[in-house]
């Protein structure tokens, strides 16, 4: 007895951290065929590469000889620090892969033949994911580097961001024009934020700047007004990329990663959104495009209702506003992932509340554990083709001038 003709055993019976991205994502091709995604212009406004794989290369871009020596000594002497030196990588984040159930979250350990540097390998991995998901342009961010907003030593965070931004713009962006980025700002240091914009704003592929993960600096502080003015004048969006932290005052009570992750990303952006709107930043800088990233969408109608309700009773607390908070929020932009999809009626109401055909931009968040494929948008039963095209890429084309 033999196996029948027409039976092919998959060479990868179990997907692991060593499986090729193209094989992990092979099933995305079903969506490409079913929804004709090759006919759409698809921009992924939030994805990630694995910068710690290239960490020793990035640290060579540090300006300060003292910090560079600290990094070298850490890498040389601490057994586990070769790819973590100077970094504030929070240990709780290693719970993200659900105990190995979602391998691509932990590591993309696949082979990348003919790649000499970390940057070459990174570009190869990004290309594989883009091609597998029919993505035309991918906005690529780091991963643990987004935690620098919570670094215990702000001056080290600023130095790391500068080194990373120099590495990314000189080593990654020139290798692949389909890759774009919004660079992280050293938000603890407003002057350094201005210097960052001055240094990188004109670099090809830099399409905006990010406030990353931090939630302790009020975004309405006067010290930040020159930054917002500079971005507005240059026509560059500011993005708020939320990040989780299990040490926040509320999440520190939580005993499961699920709980902290569900709450922490959202409260991070809720905090900034509240300060941003109630202090009238959109009135002060009406031309500044604002993007809220990686918090899903369900929080937005909640905050619209909550802030409107309070504003109507306490107008004197928000004197710069000339319309309800929700009206400003509807003029901002949102990335889609992780899109809460478990109740069609609630999701439809959410998309209506934020004027999704004009404000929502698809994002995958690949390779994170809760990533969304483009088919997630294409399959929504209550959106017409025009709305789907806008969400999948046309709105991003306008926002970023692609």
């Amino acid at each position: 007895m033999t196996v029948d003709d027409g039976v092919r055993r998959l060479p990868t019976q179990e997907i692991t951290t060593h499986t090729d991205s193209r094989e992990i994502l092979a099933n995305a091709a079903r969506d490409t065929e079913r929804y004709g995604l090759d006919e759409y212009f698809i921009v992924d406004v939030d994805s990630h590469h694995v910068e710690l794989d290239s960490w020793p290369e990035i640290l060579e871009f540090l300006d300060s000889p003292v910090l560079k020596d600290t990094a070298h000594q850490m890498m040389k002497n601490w057994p586990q620090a070769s790819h973590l030196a100077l970094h504030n990588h929070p240990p709780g984040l290693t719970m993200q892969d659900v105990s190995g159930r979602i391998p691509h979250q932990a590591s993309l350990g696949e082979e990348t033949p003919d790649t000499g540097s970390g940057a070459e390998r990174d570009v190869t991995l990004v290309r594989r994911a883009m091609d597998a998901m029919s993505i035309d342009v991918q906005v690529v961010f780091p991963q643990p580097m987004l935690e620098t907003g919570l670094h215990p030593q702000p001056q080290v965070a600023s130095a790391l961001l500068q080194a990373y931004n120099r590495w990314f713009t000189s080593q990654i962006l020139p290798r692949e024009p389909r890759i774009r980025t919004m660079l992280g700002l050293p938000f603890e240091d407003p002057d350094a934020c201005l210097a960052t914009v001055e240094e990188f704003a004109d670099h090809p592929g830099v399409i905006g700047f990010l406030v990353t993960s931090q939630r302790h600096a009020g975004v309405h502080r006067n010290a930040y007004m020159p930054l917002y003015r500079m971005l507005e004048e240059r026509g560059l969006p500011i993005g708020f990329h939320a990040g989780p932290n299990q040490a926040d005052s509320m999440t520190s009570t939580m005993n499961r990663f699920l709980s902290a992750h569900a709450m922490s990303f959202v409260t991070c952006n809720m905090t900034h959104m509240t300060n941003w709107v109630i202090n009238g930043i959109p009135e002060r800088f009406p031309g500044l495009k604002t993007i809220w990233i990686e918090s899903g969408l369900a929080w937005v109608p909640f905050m619209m209702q909550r802030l409107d309700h309070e504003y109507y009773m306490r107008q004197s607390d928000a004197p710069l506003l000339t319309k309800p908070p929700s009206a400003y929020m509807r003029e901002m932009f949102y990335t889609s992932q992780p899109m809460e999809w478990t109740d069609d009626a609630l999701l439809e109401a959410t998309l209506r509340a934020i004027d999704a055909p004009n404000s929502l931009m698809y994002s995958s968040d690949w390779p994170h554990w809760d990533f969304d494929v483009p088919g997630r948008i294409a399959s929504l039963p209550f959106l017409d083709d025009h709305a789907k095209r806008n969400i999948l890429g046309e709105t991003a084309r306008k926002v970023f001038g692609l």
Partner: protein
Amino acid sequence: MTSTVTPRVFDVGASDEVAERGRLVVTLGEGPDAVTVGVFRFSGRLYAYENVCAHQGGPACQGRIVSRVRERLDDGQRSLGLVFDDAEMHIVCPWHGFEYDVTTGRHPGRPDYALRPVGVAEEGGRVRVTV
């Protein structure tokens, strides 16, 4: 006018190639009609499902095979921590971690999220899948 699709039966391998708590993932047929199926064995019985997660279409049959996790409580409803329940075997989609009971193909908390079952039989030491 209605069209009917004739079921196709494929010999996919010998019985001993699907070990207890093991799997065999195979693509059956060619071109647009091809179907990828995972065959699993648990408590001696075979189960088979299409390799498409009910969530976002991920390759659910190529993920971890792991016992269901439960939380033990004492008589006073105090938690005694997490344990594996080896009486229930889960298949986990590697894209996002959706878990399915191998005997039903259903998500333990939302049974309407389910893998598409595929006919599987064992005869004369051979495993045959019907699609």
